[in-house]
Every structure is written in C-alpha cells, then in structure tokens.
C-alpha cells in the first residue's frame, strides 16, 4: 500500500513537471522535424530542378532550351542553397489586395497550381507590419516569400538571417534590364547582393475631386488643375481659394502625412543618416522649410487635421457624413489608385449616400514624388525555391505576365516596355478616376523616382517627424525649435545604432 502511494505520488509529480516543460520541448521537435524535411528535400532537389524548366517551356513558347536562354526567358535554376519540395508557397504580407490579382497572373504564366500559393497576412500597415514580421520570423513559421515596404526593406535585406540572395531561387540582375532604374539598387543589400525585387513603381500624384474643383476653382480639366498647383506656392495659393469658397470646410491637403511624403520624397536631396550620424545641419537640410510650411498652412486650414491611416482620413473624400468634403484631394501613389485601394475607400461604394465614385482625377501635383513600393524577398528558410523563383520572375521580370497584371489591377508595374506599350495603347481606363488613365499621368514622375538617398531608418524618421510636427501644428509644442528638438530627441531614443547630434 505504502509503495503504491509512493509510486502514485512520484508519477503525479513527474507528470506535472513534464507538462510544465512541454513548452520548451516543442520547439526542439519541430526543428528536428524541419531538419529531416530539409534533408529529404535536398534529395528531391535534383529531380525538381530538372522538372522546372520543362514546365516553363511548355507554358512559355519562346524559351526553347533551358540552358543559356533561361536567364532571359524564365527564372534560372535554383542554385541548391535553399530548400525545395514544400507543399505551399507561403507569402508573408500586410495586405492581400495585390496578391489576389497576382495568383491568377502567376498561375497563368507558370502553370503553378493556384491553390499552392497561400498568404499570411499580419493585418497591420506600415511600421506595425514590420514589427509583426519580426514575430512571425521569431516563431519560425513557414515563410517562403515576404513583402517589404520601401521604408524598411533595407533592414531585412541587410540581414542574412531574414533574407536570402535571389540567386538562390534563380533570379539574377540581368533579368531587370527593362526595369525602372532605382528598383534594382533598392533591392540590393550593403554588399551589392540582389535580395529583393519589386513589381511596382510607386510614383505619387495628387488625386482631387473634380466636382469641387469645378465648383470652387472653375477648373474642368486635369491640365488646368496641374497648372493651378504646379509648385508648392501655387498649391497653397489655390488652397486659399478653396478654403475661402468652401467657407472653411475644405482643406487642400488630406493630411500632414501626405504633404510630408510629397515634400520629403520630392524635395529632399540628402540622406537622413550619413555614416551612422544624424547631424543638426543635415537634419535642417533634410527638413527644408517643411515645418514652417506645415504650421502656416495647418493653422490656415489648408491641411486637414486628420491623420493618415486613422478612421478620420479616408472618409474626408466623400460628400456626406461627418467628414464630408473636408479635403479637396489626397496625395496618393500609384498603389492607392487601383481597385480596392485607398482611393476606392475614399470614394465609398458606388451608389451609396455621399459616394464620390468616379469623381476624382489625378495630376502629378506640386512636385514629382513617390511613396514606397513593395519589394519581395525570399526567406532563407524557404522550402519552395523553385516556386519562389517562378513567382518572382512572373511578377517582376516576365513582360507578358506583368502586362496581364497591369490590365487586371491597373498598377504601375516595374517594366518600362510594358508601361510604354500600355500608355501608347491607351487601354487603361480607371473607373475610380472617371476613366482617366492614371498610368499616363504619372509616367513622368515614375521615370524620375530616385531612391539613392533612402536609408533603412527612414520609417522611424518619418514616423517621429510626423508626430513632432503634428504636435507643433496642434499647438502642444510651442515653437519650431522645440519641434525639431523633440523630433531629434525621439529619434535618438528609437534609433539605437545611430548617433543623433
């Protein structure tokens, strides 16, 4: 009896301890599993690699042989450094709007099963998405490809733990002869290794309400509108008219963030961080007269009080509701102008009360500018190197597939020939813009995009600057000097590996 009790007690105690440590053990088993997976994968690699070009040639009539010509007419063969044979091509993203169109395009171009492509949406935009990514990677979840915003793609590309060289999936630089110039350097890491490619060019424009323009400014064509806002002085002069005629309701700019994006990416000529230091002089040069311009025009009511990405922001574009007519137009890049994007949300659903569907037109605006763009990187832990290569090639280098994507989504793709053909054909007509061809309007801005001064810290810098300037405009910071000081203080706290002087 005594023994039985002892044994029972011991077993109960052991069971409890064991369950408590389950959390620790789990990780180990999963890694050993993936390790065995990887070895079996390696065995299959040769088989897969020979299969892949055959699939390609059957779909793509021009690629006859899979040797030398492969580099121009399809993705090369993966160099075997990355895993193969996974069940699903998992794409980490923060919005699936683009992906839903990509599935069809990629499936048609490569013959890949649509069901094979799955996405993992972290469900947050901008900076937050980036933090969520870190969690996904830390949890060792299956990720093959991941989307990176231009604000922070460099941080991922410069980190070998998170991104693999694209040669690993058979993608090389020479496939991008037709791409917009800035996109290739942006995809390289600090050592010049190609780590990311993009399918889009994010030229920015000013999308305005045609009905309000006619009412307040008597302007009926995009050309006249562009003439009225051709530079910042003209823009604010027009803003004064709009504000006056609308009796203080309508602001010219949708948000401080929009003005900053256009100003920063259109007028800034020096990189924020140079040799790991942000100097006072350099930050002054980077800021230009933005703070003063922002404060003056915010106080005058020419910049809306709404913040980007809040519930107040997009409803300003409608003609009914609490936010009705609060803005004349939005600073939008190309990716905000397609179906299901920010513009369609700003217009509201067609036929509903206050909807401004189709009432917008887009013009280049006071300055040529751009806003972000999304680069696709490959995770070093991918188990679908071949499929990843096919996906990247179809979306970013295959002119035919990219043409199909333009026709479906109306996005500005990263291929000069495709864009020139599309604009020349005049087939693109955006119903959200009343049938206007926004690609033609923004083509000049796209050609001028220069990201040579981008740094991997820009996302933090933009966020902190906007917070400080917003506070100054709203009156919680007393002077411009305090505003700059506050901005630099916050930067010094958040940028741990940069010295802020």
């Amino acid at each position, binding site marked *: 009896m005594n023994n039985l009790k002892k044994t029972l007690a011991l077993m109960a105690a052991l069971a409890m301890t064991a369950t*408590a440590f389950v959390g620790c053990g789990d990780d180990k088993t999963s890694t050993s599993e993936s390790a065995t997976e990887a070895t079996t994968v390696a065995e299959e690699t040769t088989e897969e690699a020979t299969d892949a070009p055959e699939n390609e040639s059957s779909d793509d009539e021009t690629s006859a042989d899979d040797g030398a010509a492969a580099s121009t007419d399809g993705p090369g063969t993966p160099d075997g450094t990355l895993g193969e044979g996974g069940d699903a091509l998992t794409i980490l993203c923060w919005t699936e709007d683009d992906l839903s169109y990509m599935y069809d395009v990629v499936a048609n171009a490569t013959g890949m099963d649509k069901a094979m492509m799955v996405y993992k949406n972290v469900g947050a935009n901008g900076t937050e998405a980036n933090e969520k990514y870190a969690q996904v990677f830390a949890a060792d979840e299956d990720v093959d490809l991941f989307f990176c915003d231009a604000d922070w793609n460099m941080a991922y590309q410069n980190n070998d733990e998170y991104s693999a060289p694209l040669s690993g999936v058979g993608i090389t630089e020479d496939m991008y002869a037709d791409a917009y110039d800035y996109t290739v350097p942006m995809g390289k890491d600090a050592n010049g290794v190609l780590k990311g490619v993009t399918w889009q060019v994010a030229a920015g424009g000013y999308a305005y309400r045609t009905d309000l323009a006619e009412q307040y400014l008597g302007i009926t064509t995009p050309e006249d509108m562009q003439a009225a806002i051709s530079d910042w002085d003209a823009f604010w002069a027009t803003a004064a008219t709009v504000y006056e005629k609308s009796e203080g309701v309508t602001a010219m700019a949708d948000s401080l963030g929009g003005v900053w994006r256009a100003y920063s990416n259109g007028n800034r000529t020096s990189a924020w961080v140079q040799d790991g230091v942000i100097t006072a002089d350099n930050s002054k040069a980077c800021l230009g007269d933005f703070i003063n311009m922002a404060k003056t025009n915010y106080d005058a009511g020419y910049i809306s009080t709404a913040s980007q990405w809040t519930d107040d922001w997009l409803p300003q574009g409608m003609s009914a509701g609490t936010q009705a007519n609060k803005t004349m137009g939005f600073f939008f890049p190309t990716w905000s102008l397609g179906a299901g994007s920010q513009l369609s949300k700003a217009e509201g659903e067609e036929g509903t009360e206050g909807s401004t569907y189709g009432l917008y037109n887009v013009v280049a605006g006071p300055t040529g500018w751009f806003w972000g763009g999304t680069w696709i990187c490959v995770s070093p832990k991918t188990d679908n190197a071949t499929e990843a290569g096919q996906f990247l090639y179809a979306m970013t280098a295959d002119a035919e597939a990219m043409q199909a994507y333009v026709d479906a989504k109306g996005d500005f793709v990263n291929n000069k020939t495709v864009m020139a053909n599309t604009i020349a054909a005049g087939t693109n007509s955006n119903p959200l813009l009343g049938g206007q061809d926004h690609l033609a309007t923004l083509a000049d801005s796209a050609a001028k995009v220069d990201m040579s001064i981008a740094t991997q810290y820009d996302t933090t810098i933009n966020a902190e600057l906007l917070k400080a300037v917003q506070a100054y405009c709203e009156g919680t910071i007393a002077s411009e000097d305090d505003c700059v000081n506050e901005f630099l203080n916050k930067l010094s706290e958040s940028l741990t590996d940069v010295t802020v002087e």
Partner: protein
Amino acid sequence: MASTAQSRIKSISYAKYGYMFIAPFFIVYAFFQIWPLINTFILSFFGNGDAAFGAEAQEFMALDNYKTLLFGGDDRRSNALHDTFVQSFINTVILWVGNFIPQIALSLLLAVWFTDSKLHIPGQGAFKVIMYLPNIITAVSVAALFMRFISNSQTSAANIILQNMGNEAIKFENDPAWSRGIVMFIQTWMWFGNTMIMMMSGILGINPSLFEAANIDGASSGQVLGKITLPLLKPMVVYTLITSMIGGLQMFDIPFLYHTAAGDIKDHLRTVAVFIYEQFRVGNNVHSPQYGVAGAASIMLFFVTAILGIFVFRMNRDQDEARKKAERKALVKEYKKQQKLAKKGGLE
C-alpha cells in the same frame, strides 16, 4: 513519555510526500519566475548592442544604465532617455493618485450603503454584478470603447456631438488634463467594483453586535461610520492601498492603448511600464531591443514599489497590535527562560 510518542510520529511522517507534491511548482517557479527576475537584474548592468546587426554584443557597463536614466548624460540620447523616464514617473504617480482617490471614496460609499441593514437596497446582487462588470472586460476592449467615445478622432462620439452643436472638434488626447482625466476615469470605472467588493467583505467581517449596540445607544449613521466602520475597516483599506499602489505603479494597458494614430503614445500618458515596454522593443525595423535600459527602469520601479509598500504598511500598522506583539514576544522569551531554569532544577 512525550519523546517516545514524538519519535514514533516522526517515523510514519508523510511530510516528504508533501514536499514531493509541491516540488513541481517550485521547480517551474524557479525556472520561469525566479530566473527571469534575477536575469532582469543582470541585464540591467549590460549594454544594448545587438549582434544581429553587426553591432557589438552586450558589454558590461555597471551602473551606466541607471546613471543615464536618473541623471542624463552628455549626449542627446542620454538626456532624452532621462527626460522621458522622469516624465513617465511623474505621469505614473499622477495617474495612480488620480484614480485611487475617487476609486476608494466611491467604493467605500457604495460598500457602506450596500451593507447598511437599515437601508435595505433592493436588487443588490444586480448592482454588484453591474459594478463589477467593467473589470471583466479586457483593457483592450475598454480602450477601444473609449476611443469611439472620446478621442482625437473627429468621428468619436464626443466630437460628433461637439461638431453638431457648431463647435470645433477637440483633440482630447493632446490635452494633458483631458487625456489624463479620461485615463483616470477609465481606471476608476474599471476597478471601483472590485474595490467595493473588498470593502463589503471587510465591513461584513465586523461584529454586527457593535452596530446593534451603536443603534441602541442612538448613534447617528455618521457616528457609526466614523467611530465603528472606518477604524475597523482599516486593515482592508491598507490592503487595498498597497495592492492598488503596486498595480498603479505598473499601470500599462490603458495609457498604452489610448491613442488614435498608430504608435502615437502621448508624452503625458507614458507610464514607467510603457517606457519599459518601448525600450524593450524599440529599435530600427528589425529588433534591436534596449534590454539594459528596460531592465534598469524595471529594477528602479521594483525598488520604488517595494519602498513605498513598506512605508505604507508601517505607517498604517495598528499601533496597539504592534505593542501587543512585542509584549507577547517578551512573554514567550520569559517563559522559555523559566523552563530552562526548571530543567536545571533551579526554581521550584
């Protein structure tokens, strides 16, 4: 005689099984609680280099993190950290005091009413449940709820009302008075039900004959409250004060969540816990957390909490109780002394 019985009991003692049963808890506790606690101490003495970014790995820097937080330094970063930390400490104290006082007053009042046998409030159970309810909702939902009511957003209820009345919308989060007031209100609203239940159990623990005697003697309800309820409720009030203080100094969720624009945590709402969290996950893009700074701030918060807790406890300890305890100790000592003497065969 006693010695044989004692030795027999010892031989069939089940104590070791007891230890076996509680061992798993202590093992797990040591691994997942004690070690992280000790590790926080250790981390607070180290730098924040992040090997993943090619920066130097963590280096030992003694009390530098503490020095930076408490006194600032020569460079912008040290001074910025110092200012933020001090401000966050002030915020924490303001927010805690501002929610504790109304909370304890309200819950005391309600507890007295609910337990008063003369008042006989109908539907007490329903009231208690309704008042406790805010505590059951998660802080995230509460914050989301209040964001829709009253916030920077022009489409929040308060701002829609203001605008419909022809006024300008107010950015409630920007104004320290408004936003702190709102956070205090939320905290009070969330916790007064909980405190009320505590107070009620304290009052119900008081001997009813005292109240009866007071009634027979014709004491007014004010006298009953001041002379009987409050003095005898003191231990419960002290307990609430200490637990609330510990919780209040660690206040995190509502101040952290109450902002409209992403990441826009207001300087006048940043508590020490929020500061610690920000430092813990700060960094450009992919993680370069400031474990050292976050650790140092945590440790300082810990000491402040501990010191304040001891201070409050000492201040409120029943003086009579303390004296009695000392007397009892002296008595026991005297008794043992006598026994010792008796063993030696001295005293008769």
